[in-house]
């Protein structure tokens, strides 16, 4: 990793006002994080924040550019600007930035050659699973891989991207909530869970290259109330969780027959206290249901979870296992915390 000081923060590698410690920020900056739904990125500059770094995101000639949201000329946020076919235009002096973040127009001296210094500070970008993924500080020696989402590209599967969902809480707490199987009967009773089905059958976790996998088999139906008769009586519901540390996890729900629903939970760390949740979904059934209904149903589930995650204290995730109490249903949460600890995260999860 380069040790170049942050341009706006010469005494540190981190963005000004970073809510992370240096070592945690560096570890997180090596990873890919989503910053936008790809379909929402057009020519117009759009604003995003990742790890306290303000970003501008735009598309020019089909290619997505992600850069620090600062005009290299006089420091105005480009996300406030306008755009044309050739790029985004700074609202202050009209400088225009196109492919690769390079300046291609200086309106006040149109005949002057454009200096190299007039280029945006861009970051590596990948479009995958309908999301724009960014890596702020790639590790050249061991580049981080993108998370894998089962079935997204498989024939017969519909691809859905839920609108981004903001949470006033730490990404680690949100991911742990996604992996939690004991809260269904308490929080999700208005959407899919049965308040009387509280028992969590024992399950185990298996370490994988980038996290762990947990196959959770229970009688908790994933059909919403009114549709539970669609599953045979005594149907054993398999939910396969696969984490990609630090903040991505997929859940593949095995519905009756070959019907599958895959939910990729991508918690993007805006800061240590804010999270933007991106959720690509793939399914091979119920394809005639309007996508808006899928969005609305999942929004209700996210709201149910948010109510808890925003209230948890400490806000961050205690990686010292002695700081909170653990029950058998927590095997995934324990594996998650152990995994993060192994990756080297420390201070900022402790508070």
């Amino acid at each position, binding site marked *: 990793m380069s040790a170049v000081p942050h341009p706006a923060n010469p005494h540190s590698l981190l963005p000004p006002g970073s809510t992370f410690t240096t070592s945690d920020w560096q570890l997180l900056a090596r990873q890919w994080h989503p910053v936008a739904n790809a379909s929402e990125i057009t020519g117009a500059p759009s604003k995003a924040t990742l790890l306290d770094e303000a970003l501008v995101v735009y598309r020019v000639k089909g290619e997505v550019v992600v850069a620090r949201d600062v005009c290299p000329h006089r420091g105005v946020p480009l996300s406030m600007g306008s755009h044309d076919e050739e790029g985004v235009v700074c609202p202050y002096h009209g400088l225009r930035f196109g492919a690769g973040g390079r300046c291609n127009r200086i309106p006040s001296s149109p005949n002057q050659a454009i200096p190299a210094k007039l280029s945006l500070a861009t970051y590596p970008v990948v479009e995958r699973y309908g999301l724009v993924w960014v890596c702020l500080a790639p590790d050249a020696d061991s580049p981080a891989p993108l998370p894998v989402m089962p079935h997204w590209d498989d024939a017969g599967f519909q691809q859905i991207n839920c609108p981004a969902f903001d949470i006033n809480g730490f990404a680690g707490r949100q991911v742990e909530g996604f992996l939690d199987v004991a809260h269904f009967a308490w929080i999700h009773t208005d959407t899919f869970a049965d308040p009387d089905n509280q028992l969590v059958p024992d399950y*185990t976790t*298996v*370490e994988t290259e980038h996290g762990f996998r947990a196959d959770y088999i229970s009688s908790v139906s994933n059909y919403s109330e009114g549709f539970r008769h669609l599953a045979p009586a005594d149907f054993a519901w398999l939910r396969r969780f696969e984490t990609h540390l630090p903040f991505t996890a997929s859940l593949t729900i095995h519905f009756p027959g070959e019907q599958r629903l895959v939910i990729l939970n991508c918690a993007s760390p805006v800061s240590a206290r804010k999270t933007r949740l991106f959720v690509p979904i793939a399914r091979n059934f119920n394809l005639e249901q309007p996508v808006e209904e899928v969005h609305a149903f999942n929004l209700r589930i996210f709201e149910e979870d948010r109510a808890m995650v925003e209230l948890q204290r400490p806000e961050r995730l205690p990686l*010292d*296992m*002695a700081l*909170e*109490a*653990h*029950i*058998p249903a*927590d*095997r995934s949460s*324990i594996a998650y915390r*152990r995994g993060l600890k192994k990756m080297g995260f420390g201070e900022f999860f402790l508070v």
Partner: protein
Amino acid sequence: MAMETLEVVIDAMSRQGAGNVAVELMRADGAALPAFEAGAHVDVHLPGGLIRQYSIASPPADRSRYVLCVRREPASRGGSASVHERLRVGQALTISTPRNLFALRPGGHHVLVAGGIGITPLLAMGHQLLAAGSSFELHYYVRSRQEIAFLRQLQGELGERVHLHSAEEGRDARQVLPGALDGAGNDHQLYLCGPAAFMDHITAAAQARGWDAARIHSEAFAPVVPVPSADAAAQDAAFEVQLASSGQVYRVPADRTIAQVLGEAGVPLSLSCEMGICGACLTDVVEGMPDHRDSVQSETEKAGNRQITVCCSRSRSPRLTLAL
């Protein structure tokens, strides 16, 4: 603990008495395998991702192969079933290099006592002692004669030093103890391998006959239970825990945990789940062999024996020294 691995192939498999299968591992090119001392085991990476430790039964002098022997356990957690159902001759396997936590010690006479499939490391010990011209005897307790593994070797080269005891014939360890436990010299060594209750019984009998714990060596092969159950507790033995900082020694009775004993003694511990699932109480092991009862450490971590969950795990060695 990062362990070196080896690629081997299964050269032969054979039935070794009812319910047992021997697996002979060689390098594909026939080259010599790493040397080992009797009592060593290897980690075998089984199909399906399980890693299990099995003792090497073959003579250490034979570097061409490692022979393992695995009993079909009805309550298998996957390892024994995987060996019996999924391995076949010619198959490639990854194993670790041999590790020894159960080595022979210098002594004037060696008493080897096996219960059931616990014969595997003791058979290798018998071969090594025979080759060295050392004085030894091997007692092998089985439920019935049909279950005897490696019968030909036991009746052949090791012959006159082998004592077979069949429970079916009224010769279980509660009825018949090895005579060598009585009147043993101070340089005699006792090696035990078998079910925990079996080893506890022999250990208690030996200690009652004046054997010093330092001369009793054991290796358990019983599967580690994820959470202590009433059944497991019934088979637990007492052991000692020593604090590395002060040297203070505490006795942990069969029905109490390390955490309970140390907690009462005022030793500060970091506890959370108290059932071996969270790892809050993981404590470094300085000396001794933990009997892992937790389900938070991975198989590799458990095999490394560097840490123990003091809330539920126990000891395979008479004493465990912890970094407390």
